[in-house]
């Protein structure tokens, strides 16, 4: 079996994103620059009551943004549709100004998703309660498996390199991006479109509430009064290629995916290890994979969910792995926790931060908690010279992924 060659550099040649603060990179970055969060009263699931009522929803007409007919889109899940919108933007950027187009027939799709078509599964469940199994239409529930978004993207854009999906809870997209890089390094794939997608659904909205992990107010990562997450939704993809291939194609390289680390706390089904050991090991893994020294990391885009446990454990982990001077921020203060998509959405934010040499802020951080002692870039973005940065993504089951990106001039 061919081995991942660490001398092979991974170029990022495209990025696409949709979440509560924008339908594309431009809109998202304007919101970041202007410190404008996309969190409000939830409009989904009218008539059903939850203990909390806010969310970071994508409130735009997706059908208008899709390169497919209504007939086709009716057979897909909302997570599929969000994925298609983000993938379309990423694929377009990868071809922009290039002398030859991305070889789509050899592109692998690697998507992280936690819920997949669960929203459609819920609706099917309700219809069956009402009408019985014989009369409930089954077409959309076929897209319930978490393999849906990868397949939808591959199908719509004619991508022939393979499909692989990652359902590792909130670490899904980080893991999906990492393994895609390795498959490029080992020549098991030639191009990767890697990211994540997740739509809000009842099960997760209610589930995080019963775990008492949802903040009744917009989340306040690292804050003294933080009470939990804000649930969000969205999708994002990166286009990854081997460096030489991207150069040969005349593609514009927007960042380098330098390496990644993936670990497990092996501690608890839902809670992170309090000492942050798994998170620390993931960051160390990324540094080793990318052959970058801890002292050369200038910014960390934190997982920063806003839960009591995560933010304090992650702070400890960053201090141990990187140091106590590195600026850190949580973009979840803008668009909430997008679960399985988070690793993809925040990877795109991290790439944009590198390109713009601007660290996104942590919003609403009036007073950091006593156990959160780092510089969290509160309130407003900060111009910051950055060459190497980390993007952290952790999930249920104690799975941790850290991605290491480097600036390309």
């Amino acid at each position, binding site marked *: 079996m061919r081995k991942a060659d660490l001398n092979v550099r991974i170029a990022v040649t495209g990025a696409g994103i949709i979440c509560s603060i924008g339908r594309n990179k431009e809109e998202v970055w304007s919101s970041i620059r202007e410190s404008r969060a996309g969190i409000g009263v939830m409009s989904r699931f009218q008539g059903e009551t939850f203990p909390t009522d806010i969310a970071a929803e994508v409130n735009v007409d997706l059908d208008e943004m899709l390169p497919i007919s209504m007939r086709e889109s009716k057979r897909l899940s909302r997570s599929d549709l969000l994925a298609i919108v983000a993938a379309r933007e990423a694929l377009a950027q990868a071809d922009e100004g290039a002398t030859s187009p991305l070889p789509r027939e050899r592109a692998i799709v690697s998507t992280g998703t936690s819920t997949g078509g669960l929203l459609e599964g819920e609706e099917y469940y309700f219809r069956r*309660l009402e009408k019985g199994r014989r009369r409930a239409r089954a077409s959309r529930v076929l897209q319930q498996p*978490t393999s849906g978004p990868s397949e939808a993207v591959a199908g719509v854009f004619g991508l022939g390199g393979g499909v692989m999906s990652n359902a590792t809870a909130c670490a899904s997209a980080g893991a999906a991006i990492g393994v895609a890089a390795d498959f490029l390094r080992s020549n*098991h794939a030639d191009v990767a479109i890697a990211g994540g997608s997740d739509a809000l659904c009842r099960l997760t909205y209610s589930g995080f509430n019963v775990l008492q992990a949802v903040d009744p107010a917009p989340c306040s990562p690292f804050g003294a009064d933080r009470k939990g997450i804000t649930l969000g939704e969205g999708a994002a993809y990166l286009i990854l290629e081997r460096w030489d291939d991207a150069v040969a194609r005349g593609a514009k390289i927007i960042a380098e995916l330098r390496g990644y680390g993936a*670990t497990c706390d092996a501690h608890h089904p839902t809670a992170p290890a309090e000492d942050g050991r798994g998170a620390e090991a993931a960051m160390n893994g990324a540094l080793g994979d990318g052959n970058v020294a801890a002292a050369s990391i200038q910014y960390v885009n934190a997982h920063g969910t806003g839960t009591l446990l995560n933010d304090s454990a992650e702070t400890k982990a960053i201090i141990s792995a990187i140091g106590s001077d590195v600026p850190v921020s949580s973009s979840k203060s803008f668009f909430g926790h997008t679960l399985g998509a988070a690793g993809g959405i925040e990877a795109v934010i991290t790439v944009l931060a590198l390109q713009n040499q601007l660290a996104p802020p942590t919003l609403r951080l009036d007073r950091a908690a006593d156990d959160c002692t780092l510089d969290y870039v509160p309130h407003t973005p900060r111009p910051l010279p950055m060459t190497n940065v980390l993007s952290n993504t952790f999930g249920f089951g104690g799975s941790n992924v850290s991605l290491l990106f480097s600036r390309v001039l």
Partner: protein
Amino acid sequence: MNRVAITGIGVVAPGAVGVDAFRGLLRGAESGVRPVERFDTVGLSAHNAGLIRDFAPKQFIAPGKMRRMNMLSRFAVSAAHLALLDSGATIAPESGVVLGTAFGPVQTSIEYMKEYVEKGAALAPPQLFAESVANAPGSHIAIEAGFRGFNVTVTQRESSALAAAMYAASQIVKGTVPAALLGGVEEVNEMIFSVLDRIGALAHANGAVGEMARPFDRRRNGLSIGEGSAVLLAESPEQARDRAKVYGWLSGFGIGRDTTAKISDWGEGDDQVAAAMRSAIEDADLTLDDIDAVYASANGTIRGDRLEYRALQTLFGSRLPPVVATKGWFGEYCAGGALQLIAALLALGEQSLHASYGFEEGDPEMQLDVTREARPLALRNVLVNSLSAGGGIVCTVISREGA
């Protein structure tokens, strides 16, 4: 040459708990696919599935822990326990875990939604939510085994377990971890069964021809579904040197996609399927002549089996080795697809191909040497295919000889 050793196997399969029982199942006369008793199939066209029976997870899991696990987690943790027990080795805590699952925790989600409807969004049980994430089984395995390397769950329909194997092998070869538990897990419930039945995917009785998945048979009309878990302990050649036994080696992988496939169906892109098979063989540093048998993806669907046949013809032509279809023994999706890989590994060790359960009458359109009975044969390398509905393809080559 980088190869990854399989040094332990744990199986929780329909009609077989433990690798030896599974070995026996495949050499016996009865399939693990039987009439469904767990839920009502009245009004459906299919009535059989490969369900787990006579399984006592308390043999493998402490009661206090078991209460917090759904059925998937119980299957997977038991299979992982059996795999480690089978190897007899002490495995380094830096090791990883990767499971594949096609449907994941659908039943747990339904149980949650039932509570949601009856008690309201605020009062559904948190325990059910914790187990409603697809990676819960994998994280329980890590906690039980104390493995702190990567812990991921991959989903790619019928190819889920081979995708998991590819992930694990790539990381062992890369040197990220010395070892990994890899495999798959699946649970069959009424909703999955009835939806697949509704779209005509399941094998069903047709006149005098009884309900049975009949891979490559001219009378085939659908697949049977199965559940359970199978976990393999994969290790680097250095680790494997000290092991009492090595079942075989993962030596190459190919991943691809049939771009002619529509959602939830097999396409007609036999060139693309053949290319993925060729990639796996090349990745193993082998040629077509080195492949002594194919453990096929064939599950008894009309289009899926035809696509695989055409791809095999395209790739091998007149040099096509014997083909074994295993899914009649336990069903599609069973253990996330990991049992087919395990069957191929057992064949390597026993130097004997398995009978293809359900294959009786050849299809005149498919000139294939499909095994009807067990067949002793010198086996050096075996190609294992998985073609999933929607176009995903993962193929692997397993070898008797290591690195």
